[in-house]
């Protein structure tokens, strides 16, 4: 019993000393400090259709004086479109067996967003 405890304790002390020494070495390196940085926000920006809102507003203000009522409608439509795309993204977040891990799940989300953008562009064309 005692020998087991001593061996285990020695391993724990060894692991902490060696871990700390390695950490001190690694933290000075740039690769280590940038290891866990997230590139996530880019994909989210791409998936949101923001451009049409500006165009619609400009067109309506040019055409008539009763713009106040007409302006609201296209904006509402575009915001509705935004929420539906967000819902689609949320729906696309399906659970897969491989997701049950400590690995990051953000990249898969980016993939989903990218595939949505691709589909949209194909439809537009």
């Amino acid at each position, binding site marked *: 019993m005692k020998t*087991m405890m001593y061996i285990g304790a020695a391993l*724990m002390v060894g692991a902490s000393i060696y871990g700390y020494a390695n950490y001190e070495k690694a933290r000075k390196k740039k690769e280590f400090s940038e290891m866990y940085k997230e590139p996530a926000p880019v994909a989210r920006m791409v998936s949101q259709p923001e451009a049409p809102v500006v165009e619609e507003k400009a067109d309506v203000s040019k055409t008539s004086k009763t713009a106040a009522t007409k302006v609201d409608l296209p904006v509402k439509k575009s915001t509705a479109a935004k929420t539906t795309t967000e819902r689609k993204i949320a729906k696309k977040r399906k659970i897969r067996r491989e997701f049950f891990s400590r690995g*990051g799940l953000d990249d898969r989300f980016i993939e989903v967003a990218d595939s949505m953008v691709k589909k949209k562009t194909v439809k537009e064309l």
Partner: protein
Amino acid sequence: MLFWAPVVGFSLLLIYNTIPYFSFEKDFRFISERSFLFESLFYNLSFYVHIAAGAICIGAALIQFSRYILKKSKAIHRISGKLYVFVVLFLGAPTGLFMSFFAKGSFWERALFMFMACWWFVTTLYGLSTIRKKNIIAHKIWMMRSYAMAMTAVTFRVYHLLFYMLGWGHLQNYEISLWISVIGNMLFAEWIVWKQSRHYLKSFAV
């Protein structure tokens, strides 16, 4: 049954998902994220030993808490218990402690991983020493605490997935899932201990 069905299901899923890592390919998200660390031979070794140890512990622990197996054959309980203790004390906890220095998150998440490794080691050691002294009640309590630490691997993944489905950002999700899984599991273990000790103390009442 209501408690054990998801525990067994998620534990088996974790073990199943661990198997592909032993193809030793590097295209897993966990590994590619830490490619800098995986250049080190010692970190590589620690990682593979740790995941194998984790899978063995979680698998062995499923047998340990079965009253049916304990009644049918104490030998199975003893053998898998020895395996669990050996794997935790000599493989799982030390490699976990080494890897905790390089864990994702802030200083506090790293400290939490260190605490987990140390607490896992201590509770398992107490579980062993109490059964050596034939103190079954204390053995049960310490092994419950040890198992609660082992199960943080499972509960973390459940919370991680749940928050992912809710649309949380990855790092925020990772950190909160980690804290909830560790503190939640510890509290849950203490709640079970308190509940069982109440029954035990009641048995002394006139």
